[in-house]
């Protein structure tokens, strides 16, 4: 299995036993030779640390596209997200905290919501194979302090019913756009009307002028006659 490194045999050290005679030392070699040392096995993982190796392997397994890894970097506390599971059920909530593992699959997101005026929190493993999609619904215009916003619980900064507030906002938006559309419509109608009237008047004016021309001609005729 392993090659013997004959050169790595230990040198035999002399041991002094007799007295010095005429300036020369006599010695005897040790009877027992020191043992051979075999070469070590080749290093595994080319010297990479076990955890780093395993993390990389697991990330590639649970996040082959790298989308989740990007999410773990881009998401921030305060964002409203919708998490869809493989069975198509989904949850909505505002991110309170993100626990980012040391680039590992232990990362998770804590989201908070209010259902029937009761605060509800859910910790979602970011790399869980149960998840289908994580979608950012809303990013706040002004962010609250701290990356871990545990302090907002039961204060005036607390999360409201995210879903209904989203619906309300959407409804408001729709209403606004409708109103805008109506206004635009009205404006357009008015403009069209104005244009129509203007055109009519112009046409009338034109007729009048042509009539006057005729009258002039007639008058000329009468003058000549």
């Amino acid at each position, binding site marked *: 299995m*392993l090659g013997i490194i004959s050169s790595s045999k230990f040198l035999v050290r002399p041991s002094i036993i007799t007295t010095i005679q005429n300036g020369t030392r006599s010695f005897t070699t040790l009877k027992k030779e020191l043992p051979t040392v*075999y070469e*070590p*096995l080749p290093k595994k993982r080319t010297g990479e640390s076990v*955890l780093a190796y*395993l*993390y990389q392997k697991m990330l590639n397994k*649970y996040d082959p596209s790298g989308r989740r890894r990007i999410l773990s970097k881009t998401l921030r506390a305060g964002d409203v997200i919708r998490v869809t599971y493989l069975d198509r059920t989904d949850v909505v909530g505002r991110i309170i905290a993100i626990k980012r593992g040391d680039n590992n699959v232990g990362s998770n997101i804590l989201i908070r919501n209010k259902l029937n005026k009761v605060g509800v929190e859910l910790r979602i493993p970011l*790399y869980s*194979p149960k998840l289908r999609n994580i979608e950012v619904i809303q990013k706040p215009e002004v962010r609250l302090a701290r990356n871990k916003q545990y302090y907002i619980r039961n204060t005036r900064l607390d999360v409201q019913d995210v879903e209904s507030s989203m619906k309300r906002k959407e409804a408001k938006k729709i209403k606004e756009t409708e109103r805008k559309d109506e206004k635009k419509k009205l404006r357009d109608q008015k403009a069209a009307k104005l244009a129509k009237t203007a055109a009519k008047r112009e046409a009338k004016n034109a007729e009048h002028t042509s009539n006057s021309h005729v009258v002039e001609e007639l008058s000329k005729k009468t003058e000549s006659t």
Partner: protein
Amino acid sequence: MSGLLNNIGRNGLTSKSGFNLIFQRGAAQITSIHAIPYIRTPTSTINHSVEQSNLRKRLLGRPGVLGIKRGMISWFTEEGKHFAATVIEIDACEVVGHKTKETHGYFSVIMGHIDKLKNFDTRILPMFQNAGVTPKQQIREFRVRDEKGLIPLGAEIKADYFAVGQFVDVKGVSKGKGFQGVMKRHGFKGLGASHGVSRAHRSAGGMGGNQTPGRVLPGKKMPGRMGGKNATVFNNEVLFVDAEAGILVVKGQIPGPNKSFVKVADAVKAYGRSVNDLVREAAN
């Protein structure tokens, strides 16, 4: 007449004809020549002996593996279940020696792991030379039931020695906690927070009786050094195995801090059998 016989029975006389006369309840009986006067019973085994104890011992058929605790990670199953797991590195774990019943009284496999190329003890170098392996940083032995479990010298044991899904026992030295009180060390409740308790909220309370027994009984749980002792975690499931990379992942936690040395072996409670067990099973 009966009185006379009774007298003879008491004295146990021998008749003139040479027959042994045994007298019971006043009636004379002659021993049959077919009767078995006595049987030599087998010498009783002393159960409280090393040999018998060894036969009774629940042991494994094969040795375990030496490893290094590297840390804990999150683990997902195929169904999406999520739990904690521990990563164990298996680094150049090789068989260094054997112990046999003839020479040592029992069978065991001596293993070493982590190649050590400097500052080794020259006294144990012959062992490594004999096995044909590099000197190792740590040497430990695993007891096995019989000679079938003696893996040949110099064999490297890799992580795929264990199958995914099987159970293993992990032995290590628990984290040292220093000198601790009874509440942390033994889980005592302590004394009350109020009701007149003064500066003794985490105290142990009574230590024993009064005049009887007049002393604190041996083994009383008291404050003292906690942790830093051998600890075993039984029946950890094997979740992942990578032989080439030397990685073994087991479910749950194992004793000791990161980088500490551990012994991983098949679960004794699941796979352990004594010699007596095997004999019994063969008979059935």
